[in-house]
């Protein structure tokens, strides 16, 4: 059963259309993440779901019931805000109980709910403090507690971790994941952090310019991106886009890359990944997308030997991150980033031999930026 359904939702602010007929369906118990650059409409979509901003047209259904024209209170939704939005004049206890109080839940039940949530989030010792006496991480917990106390139909999380420092963010991320597994709640979660999206989501909706560009599992979005935008947005360092010419014919396509001051590189395309659309692009320019981890040191054997083509190039910059090393090298008209193991010993100017794993490469049309193969 779908817990939340969004049908053709459109939102205009004056002359600008922020949401362009967005449709989306979320199953009960699903963890859906809305991700995209700032201004893509993800926060507006979130506010529309919550009822904080009326939509221009379209429908929003919660649990099969049309709530498009209901107040936030009538929708039975809880939300965790980026700024936490804790009521400054109330204690933690009162903050958590406020929603229940407004819904006229008897006092004994309210206290029970506060205790349950405090126990769950380990904030019992903080219950009688004011928000101003809490650290950032503690406020974040209280904000979640406030949402959890009510057991609403849907939880909305609006960039809940972005005000925390890096270490705390990773901790809370894990905790949110555990909570979701334990409580089985339906969650819509907005973030601009693609690592959060990859680690937490059951499904990810990548948004841009008021559209959902791709909706899929983290694995689909990462490995099978719908277009260049999604491919470039997910993953860090982001995918390398290399201009190439498509040659050959079905079953034996080749990608030819011209690099200034270097011999041309020919990469064979794995035949089982051919698509019919490729035929029309023979002899034309295409964009080859290779993630940094699709390069590897020459001596590491690829799973499919035949698809590993050797590339030799001078290193312009070498950036060790500890766990591995990022190498920048010229390929095509620009530079690409390759992620290699930490043992490789290279410095700027050295030539390296790298293998390119074409089995996971993707192709795009240069103009429409749509996926070709």
């Amino acid at each position: 059963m779908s817990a939340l359904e969004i049908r053709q939702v459109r939102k205009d602010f004056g002359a600008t259309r922020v949401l362009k007929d967005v449709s989306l369906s979320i199953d009960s118990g699903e963890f859906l993440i809305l991700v995209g650059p700032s201004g893509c409409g993800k926060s507006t979509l979130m506010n529309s779901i919550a009822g904080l901003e009326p939509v221009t047209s379209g429908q929003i259904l919660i649990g099969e019931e049309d709530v498009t024209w209901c107040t936030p209170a009538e929708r039975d939704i809880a939300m965790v805000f980026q700024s936490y939005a804790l009521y400054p004049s109330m204690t933690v206890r009162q903050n958590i109980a406020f929603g229940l109080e407004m819904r006229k839940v008897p006092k004994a039940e309210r206290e029970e709910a506060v205790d349950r949530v405090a126990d769950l989030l380990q904030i019992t010792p903080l219950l009688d403090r004011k928000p101003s006496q809490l650290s950032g991480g503690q406020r974040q917990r209280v904000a979640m507690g406030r949402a959890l106390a009510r057991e609403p139909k849907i939880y909305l999380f609006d960039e809940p971790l972005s005000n925390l420092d890096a270490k705390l963010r990773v901790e809370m991320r894990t905790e949110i994941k555990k909570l979701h597994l334990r409580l089985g709640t339906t969650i819509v979660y907005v973030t601009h952090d693609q690592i959060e999206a990859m680690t937490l989501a059951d499904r990810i909706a990548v948004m841009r310019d008021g559209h959902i560009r791709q909706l899929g599992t983290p694995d689909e979005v990462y490995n099978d991106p719908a277009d260049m935008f999604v491919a470039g947005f997910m993953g860090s360092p982001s995918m390398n886009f290399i201009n190439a010419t498509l040659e050959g014919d079905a079953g034996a396509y080749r990608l030819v890359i011209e690099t200034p001051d270097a011999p041309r590189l020919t990469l064979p395309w794995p035949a089982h990944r051919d698509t019919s659309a490729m035929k029309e692009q023979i002899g034309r320019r295409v964009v080859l997308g290779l993630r940094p981890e699709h390069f590897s040191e020459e001596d590491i054997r690829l799973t499919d030997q035949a698809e590993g083509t050797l590339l030799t190039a001078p290193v312009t910059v070498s950036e060790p991150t500890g766990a591995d090393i990022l190498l920048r090298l010229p390929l095509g008209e620009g530079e690409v980033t390759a992620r290699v193991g930490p043992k490789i010993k290279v410095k700027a100017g050295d030539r390296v031999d790298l293998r390119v794993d074409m089995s996971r490469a993707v192709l795009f049309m240069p103009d429409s930026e749509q996926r070709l193969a």
Partner: protein
Amino acid sequence: MDNVIRRRTLGARLARWAVYAVLVGMALFYLLPLVVMLLTSVKPLEEIRAGSLLALPQAPTLAPWVKAWSEACTGMRCEGVGGYFWNSFRIVIPAVAISTFLGALNGYALTKWRFRGADLIFALMLFGCFIPFQVVLLPMARTLGWLGLSNSTAGLVLVHVVFGIAFTTLFFRNFYVAIPNELVSAAKLDGAGFFRIFWRILLPVSAPIFVVSVIWQFTQIWNDFLFGVAFSAFETQPVTVALNNMVNTSTGVKEYNVDMAAAMIAALPTLVVYVLAGKYFVRGLTAGSVKG
């Protein structure tokens, strides 16, 4: 302003002395009228005629204060300014309470429930802070007449509320604009409505701006003369009008000490407020300083 090390030369030290001299000198300039007012108000009339302005009283007396409070002539009547002092309170207290309350509600509705046209409404209301009140005097007099409020305390309360809302709305709007909207969003999702959010979420954090608004309105209305002189009768006039009448009454011997005592009486409430809550007074001034 800075923590930069500077060489302590003779010139620098002299300059420092000069700075203090100027600052203290100016302080004396600002204090002079208050000191003279106080000294004069406790001197007998003969001493004033004989001695200098700044001479300390030889035989200090509170008689001028007593006379100013209950006997001095303001125009035709000789009942002192005491009654008018209370008149001022009868005008100020309801006017301050009502205008602050309305300003708070307006500020809240205009910032946290941003309906279409809210900015335009605010801009139009704000203009009320800027007009010279001469431009509303005559119609106001007619309107008060129609409402049966001419020459009444209630009439003056109405006038001060009407022209005070612009300021109180400005104060509260600017204060509430800085409070995160997410707080209101959270309360909406929690199921609270318009008044409940105001009462439970906004009001508990509004104490500072209430103080600013109350002090500003109190000072403005207490010190008002134009509306008082235009719209009040003898029995209902505020203390500023009574003081002016008293000082400009030209019958009999001019009693400067009584004048000064009456001026002190008229000045005391706002001076006390300034001394007790100077910080908020300044904040109100800079925020609402557009009023003359």
